[in-house]
């Protein structure tokens, strides 16, 4: 689909006019969109390696100090973790619908689904705050007056909490960045910056948001559900 022929009847040769959302260096919107997509996937590749480091460290120390990881895990709120899983999965489907609305050029639907995603992201952070507050109250912050009276070596249980806070903290930071980006997208939608041909920022944010969901899909069983039955 050639954009320049549609919007610029006088356009000839290399100086054909093009809409403001199309960058000079691209031949057409298809090319620009596929470049934007590939760039986003390459970025996510680096994110996979970034979180992969956490998962690697986690696996090694979990195999070394399995009992402590089980004991530490039993103090996490399985219900709240499960609730947050459902919240994130739901926010993923609302985000998928926002991208679909963008593809179809339905502005009101885009706004509605982005707002839903935003609210669910905030819900996730509120639940996360409740969990962190509980750990704070019970002196389960590694390196800060860490107190462990249950079975298990406090030093290695502390290691488990180190992984818990690093992994969920870094994931939570991604959610917070996501909230910021969602607000930015909502402003751009309100300014009529997108149409059914140009919506790459919405689509790429969708990819980012699904990636954040993906990480949580692994974090939930690995952190909250170690060693089976508890509570």
């Amino acid at each position: 689909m050639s954009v320049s022929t549609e919007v610029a009847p006088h356009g000839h040769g290399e100086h054909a006019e093009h809409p403001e959302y199309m960058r000079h260096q691209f031949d057409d919107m298809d090319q620009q969109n596929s470049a934007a997509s590939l760039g986003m996937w390459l970025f996510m590749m680096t994110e996979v390696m970034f979180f992969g480091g956490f998962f690697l460290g986690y696996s090694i120390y979990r195999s070394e100090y399995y009992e402590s990881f089980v004991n530490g895990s039993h103090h996490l709120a399985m219900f709240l973790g499960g609730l947050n899983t459902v919240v994130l999965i739901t926010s993923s489907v609302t985000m998928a619908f926002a991208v679909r609305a963008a593809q179809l050029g339905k502005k009101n639907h885009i706004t509605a689904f982005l707002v839903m995603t935003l609210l669910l992201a905030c819900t996730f952070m509120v639940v996360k705050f409740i969990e962190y507050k509980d750990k704070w109250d019970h002196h389960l912050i590694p390196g800060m007056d860490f107190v462990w009276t249950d079975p298990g070596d406090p030093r290695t249980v502390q290691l488990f909490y180190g992984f818990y806070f690093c992994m969920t903290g870094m994931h939570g930071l991604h959610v917070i960045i996501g909230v910021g980006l969602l607000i930015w997208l909502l402003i751009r939608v309100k300014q009529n910056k997108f149409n059914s041909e140009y919506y790459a920022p919405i689509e790429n944010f969708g990819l980012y948001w699904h990636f954040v969901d993906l990480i949580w899909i692994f974090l939930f069983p690995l952190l909250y559900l170690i060693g089976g039955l508890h509570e």
Partner: protein
Amino acid sequence: MAEHAEHIEHSGPHIASVSNYLTIFSLLLILTAATVGVALMDLGIFNTVVALMIACVKAMLVILYYMHLKFSPGQIKLAAAAAIFWLMIMLVITAFDYVGRAWQHVPAGW
């Protein structure tokens, strides 16, 4: 509404139907319930194995359908495959290193 979407003529992006997204959504919810259900049973070492298998199935559903990888061009599939491949290099080779070397325990008497 779902059928409406399928009849849209387009050369560009894949536009999935609403029912497709809702089906994946319900599958993800069912699998989340399954994860919790399995965790409440005592399967020994298989607790972890099953939990990770369910997580991988959920991840595949998200990647293939929500992230549209199934309908993406080859270069995107290659990028996704490379991400998983490099992750596996890091995880598997490091794991071999830990399993294969006796560097974890300080011998008694030291």
